[in-house]
Structure formats: structure tokens, C-alpha cells
């Protein structure tokens, strides 16, 4: 063994890389990257999503933490606070303890360098009830295996024995920290900027982490004088350790306030990168001389061979047209997330055949339903050079063009796909319904089965429906009726859950109208009629316009709907309304960042605007947030003040070697209220075009797969 150790000191400069599974930076009990109670300036790399569970009496939390950018961390907290009851009225909420939902935000201001520390600013509970509300400025510096943190906190991070608020010197009004919302209301849910960095006191906090490289364990110790809930405290020193169970999982143990032990567990992964790389093999073709002659001379053999080869990979040619040395293939596919990946696969599969026919330019038109969304045109010799490793992606880009589809009457149609309509399809899936945080009980839910069926009459028209059946539920324990100053367009959710255990969830007819193609873009439209969603039935139409060369596009929808009966069968309630929106979508110059501004009339007949911002990563992982303000007051809206929420969507093929464009979606809203509510399960006609939009941003990535 002494000989082995001898080697270690001489040649093993990188042995630490193999010594332990580093979980990386870890979270504090509030979900922020930090130590135990205090935050550090560190942030997760962009594309990370983390689930963090903390048991730290009397506050237990479930947190979801996301990093849309390297300089931004947002977290959603659902806390169970055992110090208080859900309400003072046992008849209303029994013995249930208080539940609180809040958001945290941290922004990095200065990145760490060899000589300078990292600096970040953070806002704890900046949209919520304000129970945990606090702000901080924090700096961290790593030296060797130690990471030092020092910061200054306000609000919940300050203690009565802290410093005098330094901002008091600039403006005396900083001494007051009262009211939850920007309007001073107690409804919560607004940006409480009138309280930020205010209060009589501000407190310093500091700590350090030591990373043991052999075990991967992080030891943490910190000084934190804050005590927002006025708990019994023996010491301002908290300490603990984080144990890596794997690269993705860590376990946290800590002692806090000198009195209590706590426990946490985190799962995190970076969904901006594939966890398992794709492994799709394309074999090269070898044709006999006889085959070659047939492929060169007979259009049916030429197109038929390509049709078979492409269909084997989920690429379904709809039409093929030829003009001199130019070939156009209209293709329909639902396998590849990225059009460039699909383009590459098409060329890999049929390049030998195209060369035989002396094709020089290929134009692939992507078809979704009956809509030709856009074309990707390329020089075949240049693309083959790239496929053979003789040119790079940047060189290839100059020979690949994205454009709107526009039919060329001079091209000769040599192949037309024949689909045998009508097509019948059906499926079964688990139906899980959740209602969390009600006063009677924390969790209500139902497990059931949904049966889906559809008939496609042609490419444009379909009839589809979903029937849901109950297996088990605890929904009968719902006792309370909703209260709302507005028409109850969504807040009757409990009645729908209780009475709709076995229901006809949807039953609708959809038609996509013939698109209008111009060289400046495509104008598409469609309609829907039937039981559109669980709460509404009606009829509506939608329209969208997009020029694929532009970073923006427009859509509009208009529906008349009537509220369905709670049992979700065939009958309706009295409430009916017109609802509709005009949507502006913009793919910003920041890669993957999209903005959707939607203005119009909502279900409760209120009018206003919804802002939806999302960040999409090259794998298809999506993070987003939305907020709606309409012409109703915070008081009319009720608790939460206005509608808002977050969502994320995880690509299913991120852990598969096979391609799959589907995502698992999750969305969270603070409360189910009636203001600012849109009709769900609409046609969303823009999605037929949008499928092509984000793909265009990731040229090189799509080609690499």
C-alpha cells in the first residue's frame, strides 16, 4: 500500500475527480442555495431543477427550486407551520396546522473570480403572505476546500439585536416595515416592494462550508441571529452536514438554534443536458447494379424506397415533388423534438438514393395536421460532406435555409402518401386528481382511469372524447362551499371533484381549416365544438399567423361557452359567456427565452392581460411563470390578489436513448380563484406552428443528435 500512496503524491494530479460523488452546492432550509438557515451567494447552474424536503420543527417545507439562468434562482415553498392553526375556527379547519405558500428569488450580481468573491441579492417570500419575508445581500468566496459566506439580512433575516438598518441613513422611511402587499393589503400575493430592505434592524450572518473530498460530505457551520417566529433559542450557531447519496441525491442533517435537530433530502438534476445520450443507428445502404438502375429510372421505385426507409424511423412522407435537380419532400413526423434532428435523419437515410438520382437540393417541408409549417432547404453535396465529417456545423449553416412554405406549381408531384381514413385510436391512462391545502384536510385526491378515444375523419377533422372512472378517493370529506365576489367560474372546483368522480371529461369535434400560405408566412385557423373541458362546453374558433423568419407571431381565439353541470355529463348550468384573447408571442434574442402577452376577456367576464415568460432549454426542458391582471380589484379577486403561477415541463426522452418529443408537465397556481381565468383545453392553433419555432433556435444541437 505504501507503494500505491507513493504514486498518489507524484502522478495523481486529478485523483480528487474520482474520489467522491460531489453533490455540488446544497440548499438551506428555505430552499435557497446556502448553509443551514442562511443563504450563500451560490446559485445552481441553469437548467437545474431541484425538489427539496425539509423537516425542521416547527416549520416543515417542500420546495421546488429552479435555475432558468446561471444568474437567477427561483424557488417555490409550501410550508407547514406547526405554531399556528389553519384558522382560529375549529369548525372550519379542525386541528389542521397553518399552511403557507411563497416564492423566493436570488440574483447573482458579481461572479466569483480568483481574487474577488461572488455577490448575490435575494428576496425571500417576495410574493406570498409575508410570513417568511426577508431580503439579503450575500457574498461567498471559496478558498481550497472551504467556502466562506457573509451577508446582511433584513426582515425575517434580521434580529432585534441586529444593526440599525443602514438604509435609514439615506431615507428615514426605511425604518417602517409594515403591510404585506404593495397596496398595503393583507391578501398577500403581491410584490411587497414597499417592505423590501425596510425595518428597524438588519443583521449580519456568516458561515463556512468544508468539503471533505474523500467522502464528499459537506460540513456546515453558521452564525444566524434571526428568529422570525420567536422560538426558544440557546445558540446563534447552527451546524450540520450534507451527505451525498449520489450525484443527484443528498441528505442533510443539522442542529439549529442549539435546541433542535433537523433533516432534509434533495433530489436535483440538470435537465438542460441529456442524462442518457441518444443511440439511434442508421445503416448505410448498398444497392446492386440492377437496383441502382431501377432507382434511377423508375419514379415509383425511387419514391417508394424512400417512403419505406423513412417510415421505419417514424418519418412519414406525405408528398414528394421534383423539379430538375431539386426535390421537395413534405413530411409528417412526431418522433423528433427538433426539426434539424429530423432533417439530419432523413438525409442519413436516403442520401445514397438521392445521389443516384443526381439530386442537388433538397427541401423538407414539415407538416403538422394538414398545416405545412415551414421548409428547411439544403444543398445535398454540402450536407453529405458534413455527414461524412468533412465539414463543420458552422460551415454547413451557410447552406441550410429556413423559410415559409409556399407551393411551387412548376414542381412535378411524384409521390402522394395514401392514408386510409377514418383512423380510430384509443387508450387508457391513470387519472389522478389532487387538491392540496384545503381547510378541512391537507390533501384531497382521486385515483381513477381515463379512457380516451378518437376518430380522425381526415387530416383536418377529428372527434375525440375522454371518459373518467373513479377507483378511490377521499373527496367526500369536502365540506365547505367556495366564496367569491365574482361569478364562480373556477372556484366550484370542489363540486366538480365530488360530483364528477365518474364523468365525461371531454367530447369534442375539431377541425383545422385550409391554411393560407404566402411567402410572408402562413395564416391558419380552426374550430372546436363540444364539451371542451371538465367545466365548460361550447364552440369557438382560433386563428394564427406566423412568418418563420421572424421572431414573433400572433394568434387569437374566440369562444362562447356554457358552464357544465358538476357531474360532467351532458347538462349545463345557467352561466354562459364569451371569452377570447389576442396573443403576441416573441422569441427573444436571449436563447430559449420566450414572452407571451395575451389580452382579452376572461371567463368571469373580467378583461385584462396575461404575461407568460418561459425559458426553453435545448433538451426541451421548459421553465415558466405567468401572471394575470384584470379589471377587478385585489379585494374582488380575494386571497392572493391576482392570478399567477409557475410551470415546468420535463422532456421524457432525457433519460432514454430513444427519441420522444413528449414532456411531463407540471403547473402550480397559488389558489383556484375566479378572476383572470382562461378556458382550458382550447385548440391552441398556434402550437401547430410553434412546434417549428423553438426548434430553429437550436440548429447545432439538433444536428449533433
Amino acid at each position: 500500500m505504501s507503494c500505491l500512496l507513493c504514486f498518489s503524491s507524484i502522478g495523481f494530479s486529478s485523483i480528487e475527480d474520482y474520489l467522491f460523488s460531489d453533490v455540488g452546492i446544497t440548499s438551506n432550509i428555505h430552499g435557497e442555495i446556502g448553509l443551514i438557515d442562511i443563504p450563500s451567494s451560490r446559485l445552481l447552474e441553469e437548467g437545474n431543477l431541484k425538489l427539496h424536503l425539509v423537516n425542521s420543527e416547527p416549520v416543515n417545507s417542500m420546495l421546488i427550486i429552479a435555475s432558468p439562468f446561471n444568474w437567477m434562482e427561483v424557488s417555490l415553498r409550501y410550508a407547514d407551520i406547526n405554531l399556528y392553526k389553519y384558522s382560529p375556527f375549529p369548525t372550519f379547519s379542525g386541528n389542521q396546522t397553518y399552511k403557507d405558500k411563497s416564492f423566493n428569488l436570488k440574483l447573482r450580481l458579481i461572479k466569483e473570480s480568483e481574487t474577488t468573491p461572488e455577490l448575490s441579492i435575494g428576496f425571500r417570500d417576495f410574493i406570498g403572505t409575508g410570513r417568511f419575508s426577508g431580503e439579503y445581500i450575500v457574498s461567498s468566496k471559496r478558498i481550497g476546500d472551504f467556502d466562506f459566506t457573509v451577508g446582511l439580512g433584513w426582515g425575517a433575516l434580521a434580529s432585534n439585536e441586529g444593526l440599525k438598518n443602514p438604509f435609514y441613513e439615506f431615507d428615514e422611511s426605511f425604518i417602517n416595515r409594515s403591510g404585506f402587499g404593495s397596496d398595503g393589503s393583507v391578501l398577500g400575493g403581491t410584490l411587497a416592494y414597499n417592505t423590501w430592505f425596510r425595518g428597524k434592524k438588519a443583521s449580519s450572518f456568516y458561515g463556512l462550508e468544508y468539503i471533505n473530498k474523500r467522502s464528499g460530505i459537506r460540513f456546515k457551520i453558521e452564525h444566524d441571529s434571526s428568529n422570525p417566529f420567536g422560538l426558544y433559542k440557546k445558540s446563534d450557531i447552527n451546524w450540520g452536514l450534507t451527505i451525498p447519496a449520489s450525484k443527484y441525491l443528498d441528505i442533510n442533517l443539522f442542529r439549529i438554534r442549539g435546541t433542535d435537530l433537523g433533516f432534509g433530502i434533495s433530489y436535483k438534476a440538470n435537465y438542460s443536458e441529456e442524462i442518457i445520450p441518444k443511440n439511434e443507428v442508421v445503416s448505410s445502404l448498398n444497392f446492386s447494379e440492377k437496383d441502382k438502375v431501377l432507382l434511377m429510372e423508375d419514379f415509383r421505385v425511387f419514391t417508394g424506397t424512400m417512403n419505406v426507409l423513412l417510415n421505419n424511423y417514424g418519418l412519414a412522407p406525405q408528398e414528394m415533388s421534383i423539379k430538375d435537380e431539386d426535390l421537395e419532400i413534405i413530411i409528417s413526423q412526431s418522433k423528433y423534438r427538433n426539426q434539424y434532428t429530423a432533417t439530419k435523419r432523413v438525409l442519413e437515410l436516403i442520401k445514397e438514393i438521392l445521389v443516384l438520382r443526381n439530386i442537388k437540393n433538397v427541401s423538407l417541408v414539415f407538416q403538422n395536421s394538414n398545416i405545412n409549417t415551414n421548409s428547411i432547404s439544403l444543398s445535398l453535396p454540402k450536407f453529405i460532406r458534413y455527414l461524412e465529417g468533412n465539414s463543420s456545423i458552422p460551415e454547413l449553416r451557410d447552406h441550410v435555409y429556413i423559410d415559409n412554405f409556399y407551393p411551387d406549381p412548376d414542381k412535378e408531384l411524384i409521390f402522394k402518401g395514401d392514408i386510409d381514413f377514418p383512423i380510430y385510436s384509443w387508450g387508457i391512462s391513470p387519472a389522478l386528481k389532487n387538491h392540496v391545502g384545503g381547510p378541512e384536510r391537507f390533501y384531497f385526491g382521486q385515483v381513477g382511469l381515463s379512457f380516451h378515444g378518437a376518430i380522425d375523419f381526415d387530416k383536418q377533422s377529428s372527434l375525440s372524447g375522454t371518459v373518467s372512472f373513479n377507483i378511490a378517493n377521499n373527496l367526500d370529506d369536502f365540506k365547505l362551499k367556495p366564496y367569491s365576489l365574482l361569478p364562480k367560474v373556477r372556484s366550484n372546483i370542489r363540486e366538480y371533484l365530488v360530483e364528477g368522480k365518474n364523468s365525461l371529461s371531454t367530447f369534442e369535434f375539431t377541425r383545422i381549416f385550409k391554411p393560407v400560405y404566402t411567402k410572408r408566412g402562413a395564416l391558419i385557423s380552426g374550430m372546436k365544438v363540444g364539451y371542451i373541458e371538465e367545466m365548460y362546453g361550447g364552440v369557438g374558433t382560433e386563428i394564427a399567423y406566423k412568418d418563420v423568419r421572424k421572431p414573433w407571431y400572433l394568434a387569437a381565439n374566440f369562444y362562447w361557452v356554457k358552464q357544465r353541470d358538476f357531474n360532467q355529463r351532458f347538462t349545463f348550468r345557467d352561466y354562459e359567456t364569451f371569452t377570447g384573447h389576442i396573443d403576441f408571442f416573441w422569441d427573444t434574442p436571449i436563447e430559449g427565452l420566450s414572452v407571451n402577452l395575451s389580452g382579452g376577456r376572461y371567463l368571469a367576464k373580467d378583461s385584462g392581460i396575461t404575461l407568460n415568460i418561459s425559458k426553453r432549454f435545448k433538451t426541451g426542458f421548459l421553465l415558466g411563470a405567468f401572471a394575470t391582471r384584470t379589471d377587478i380589484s385585489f379585494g374582488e379577486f380575494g386571497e392572493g390578489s391576482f392570478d399567477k403561477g409557475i410551470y415546468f415541463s420535463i422532456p421524457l426522452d432525457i433519460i432514454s436513448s430513444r427519441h420522444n418529443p413528449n414532456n411531463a408537465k407540471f403547473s402550480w397556481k397559488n389558489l383556484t380563484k375566479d378572476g383572470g381565468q382562461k378556458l382550458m383545453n382550447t385548440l391552441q392553433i398556434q402550437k401547430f406552428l410553434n412546434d417549428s419555432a423553438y426548434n430553429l433556435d437550436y440548429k447545432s444541437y439538433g444536428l449533433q443528435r
Partner: protein
Amino acid sequence: MDYKDKLRISIFQIFILFFTTSCSHIGIYEELGTYFKNIFSEPDDLSFDVVDKVKFASMQMRLGNNQNTLIVLEEDNQGILKWTSSNAIKIYTQKGIITRFMGLDNELGILEIDKSHPILNDSLSKERKINLTSFYTFKNPDLYRLPVKTEFYYHDSDDLDIFGETFKVDIYKEEALDNLIDWKFTNLFWINQDTKRVIKSSQSITPKNPKVHYTVTRKYSKQ
């Protein structure tokens, strides 16, 4: 696939299942079903047709629980065989022991096998346990000549079926004992009793990659 990969994917699936409750879509459940199937069962073997099309010496290979792929013999350099896959992975073997594995993020740069390795010098023994010290060089991150002590011993005998042909095999194990990075692994070698050649194997190549599993699907004529 090692336990960490299984844990990682299981957690991912629970995570997904947890979050799909708000938006159930049949495609998701089908995909999840496939993932669960993959965890609890090995990937399917390649079909005989796929293997039979290639007239060169070939092996069916997979990394962890990924799908099997066919690798083809590209070069024989004084007994060190270079195999290549369609996705540009290059594998070097010496009498069935993987000595180099290129084309991954973290690569096995070179394995310097202990000269007294029974597979190398055709001295397999069912009775004897032998201690070996081999040197591993990894790339990205780089680690130069890590000495790894192993114990090599006979484990079992069995019949092995490859595309309908049954081979009588002895199974040998090579277990990691002592190294500076606490790397723990067990390599398995299925050795044809008649030819004394490895026809199937599971080997760890680096601590950061899942195990490599291969089965010889078309024998190299010179071995």
C-alpha cells in the same frame, strides 16, 4: 447499469409521476412503463438478422442498461483488436479484456493489464485465486496510471446460448480489492471451455461509466 443509475432513474420516474398528476397524457405513461421495464429487465438482444448482415467479426455491446449495439472488428494490431460502432465508439480488447474505450465523455485511456493475468497468458485455473495489479489511465478528467489490485478466480460453469448455439463456459470473476479511489467493481468473463477464449463479458472501464457488457456474435477467425 449500476445501482446508482437505477436509483437515479427511479427517482426521476417518481419525480415525473409526481408531477404528471396535473396533466395526464397517455404517451407519458407508456413511456414510463417502458422505463420501468428497462429497469427491471435487460435490454433485448440484437436480432440474428442484424448480426448476420455484417460479415466481419462482431460483438453485441451495451453500456449499462442502454440498448445493445453491434460493434465490428476494424483492426488487429499484434493481438490488440480495435472494434468500432456506428456512433464512433472505439474499443480495444486484448484476449477479451477491454484495454481502451474511446468516444465517451469519460474514457478509459489505457489499461495496463498485470502480466500474470490468467486470461492474457492462458493459465486459467479453477482451483487457484490470483491477485493482480493492473494500471488504469482515465481521460476527462485525466488520471494517470491508477494501480488497482484485483482478485481473479473461478466462479461457476454454465451453458451459454448465443443465437441458438450452446457453448459450455467457465465463468471467472475479477474483483477489485484495493485502490486509491475506493473503486469497487466485479468483472465477469464467460470463457468457452473448448477454445479458452472469452465469448461474453461484463467489465467496468472507469468509475464514472456504467459497466460494459458484450457478447461475441461473430468470432474473429484468428482467435
